[in-house]
């Protein structure tokens, strides 16, 4: 009993060393594997991708991951999303689910951010808060790469993404550098878009082209299925299209106070602010919502009723595609705008 007890520590030490060596070799092999076949990260081309796409892509590429983007939204993706998600989810979430479904067999992990609150005192739509859990519950086997932004709990975007990067690359400094690079790339592209819109606006004013403001979220406007056909049609009819998501966000938030004092959704503040900012310059406004968007139902209706004297329509999009009705409504709206412009010129 005594002798075996005396031997134990030595044996145990050998065991620890062996286990350590084995673990080290396993880690080295794993790292090699990761280096050889990169981690494939899927990014669904929906919801916040249209705002933070550049940031995510550059960040993940910097960290050595292979980024797989889902294709532009098409009928098949919408059909998949509508089949998998709860019936009453809004179309934007259904599209997101459809993109995840397209990606799930092709990648190792899927990037899904949990964005609860971007600025203290403001809130995001609860769908963004629940996005991670929605995906997790609909696709139980899918691995999710998530980062959390919640200003109320002092979780910032930078902190969340750097932690995520440190997990991916096992090197915090690399992760910080990647984040800085990605952020600057994102900001440059966003600024360029805003400047382009400002230039277009000036040109159109000089040429006397009719102007229409489309008030909608980035993920509606940039979507191949929802916003893009409408923008293309308007441009083809010789109208200068302004987008509500391409003005200075801080300025827009301040402007939105004029329309509504108690509004607390960050993105809706930007929408209403854009409407207030452009309201004297434009001939008409189109409010584009996805059915059944919760915040839109209140905020957009309030905004429309406060925009007196400006022709406006609310177009609500759903997955039952009948483009004919939409076409008719757009045509007549464009006619109204052109008539108004003619009268103004006389």
């Amino acid at each position: 009993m005594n002798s075996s007890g005396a031997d134990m520590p030595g044996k145990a030490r050998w065991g620890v060393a062996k286990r350590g060596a084995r673990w080290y070799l396993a880690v080295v092999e794993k790292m090699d594997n990761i280096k050889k076949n990169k981690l494939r990260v899927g990014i669904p081309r929906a919801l916040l991708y249209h705002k933070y796409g550049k940031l995510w892509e550059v960040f993940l590429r910097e960290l050595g991951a292979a980024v797989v983007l889902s294709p532009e939204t098409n009928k098949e993706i919408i059909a998949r999303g509508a089949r998998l998600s709860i019936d009453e989810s809004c179309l934007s979430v259904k599209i997101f689910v459809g993109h995840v479904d397209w990606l799930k067999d092709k990648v190792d992990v899927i990037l899904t951010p949990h964005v609860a609150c971007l600025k203290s005192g403001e809130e995001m739509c609860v769908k963004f808060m629940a996005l991670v859990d929605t995906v997790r519950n609909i696709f139980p086997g899918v691995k999710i790469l998530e980062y959390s932004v919640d200003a109320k709990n002092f979780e910032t975007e930078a902190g969340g993404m750097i932690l995520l990067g440190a997990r991916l690359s096992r090197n915090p400094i690399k992760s910080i550098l990647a984040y800085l690079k990605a952020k600057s790339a994102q900001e440059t592209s966003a600024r360029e878009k805003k400047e382009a819109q400002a230039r277009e606006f000036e040109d159109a004013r000089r040429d006397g082209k009719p102007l229409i403001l489309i008030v909608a979220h980035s993920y509606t406007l940039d979507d191949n299925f929802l916003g893009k056909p409408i923008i293309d049609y308007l441009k083809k009819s010789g109208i200068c299209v302004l987008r509500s998501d391409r003005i200075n966000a801080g300025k827009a938030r301040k402007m939105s106070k004029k329309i509504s004092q108690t509004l607390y959704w960050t993105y809706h503040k930007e929408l209403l602010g854009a409407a207030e900012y452009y309201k004297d310059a434009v001939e008409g406004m189109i409010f584009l919502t996805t059915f059944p968007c919760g915040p839109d139902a209140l905020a957009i209706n309030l905004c429309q009723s406060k925009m007196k004297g400006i022709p406006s329509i609310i177009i609500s999009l759903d997955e039952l595609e009948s483009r004919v009705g939409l076409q008719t409504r757009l045509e007549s709206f464009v006619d109204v705008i052109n008539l108004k412009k003619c009268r103004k010129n006389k």
Partner: protein
Amino acid sequence: MGDYYSAFKCLVELIGRPLVPPPITKKTIELGFKYSPETVCIPFKYNLGNYIEALDAGADVLCQAGGGCRFGYYAETQEHILRRLGYKFEFFKLNNKNGIIDFARDFKRIAPQNSYAQIAHRLALCLARIHCIDAVSDRVRKNIGFEVRLGQMEKIYKKFLADVANAYSIVKILALKKEYLRQIDLIEINKPADCLRVGVVGELYMLMEPFANFYLEKKLAQRKIEVHRFVTVSGILKEYFTGDWFIKRHLKEARPYLTHHIGAHGTESVARANSLIKKGFDGIIHLKPFGCMPEVSAMAALNNLARDRRAPILYFSFDSQTSEAGLETRVEAFCDMLYMKKKKMNNNEQ
């Protein structure tokens, strides 16, 4: 507002004007639907209908609370709609951002003849009444289905509400609660030890307004089912005062179906359903208005819960087209299914 009328009455009396309790009728709903935005949720429409009827009846102070989802933005939109209709009134907003001090200040503005001490006293009275009403109604809800002589419990409950409305000291209110709980316990009931137990979870307005859910709890009680409901005004107030602590507890209970707070009462619905199923409840009924944002997210988790634990969950989504007959049929089928399941399990045990 349901049974809480008598609780809020004591606050409104301070203003020196009568409280107009607008009964919800078909006309209320029609009015609400006429003037509301199309895709907004049902509680908004009911509230708006209530306001219009109250204003027509001569009200000039309206009150609206606020919460985590769209509810927080109700007040401004409703005020805008009502002003556009040409009504003149004072709108009293209880937002989630405002604390209790702001509430007192706002109240003082409406009723300047009262001191802050008076307001605080009435507020405490109001809270005590809410607490008592919830305690007694919870007991009633669990036992009313098993009465031997029908109608006794309802009679006592109505008497209790009338008594509470006239009690103006906290001690008296608490004594009333004790007294009536004793009276309810004395009523002869025939309750088997293994009776069916059903938990009702979901969106708060749909749960708390019996007219809106077509008296669902009564229907369940008639089929000899013990009904448990956790969303009450006192529950909401508790949540309001404890803040994040409550959410964290719910998240713990909702594991592994949720990892983050999903807004308003969504997390609570999943947490309650999960813990009730673990406790051995026979079924869950989930209520929500059409398009309710947090509850739709909760449904994905509830679906998984139902699949993993083989738990029966019945979903109801209310909109203008929901009919009482349809609800009745589904509730009936659900109850039959629960009884059959119970019978089968008992047979297997033997």
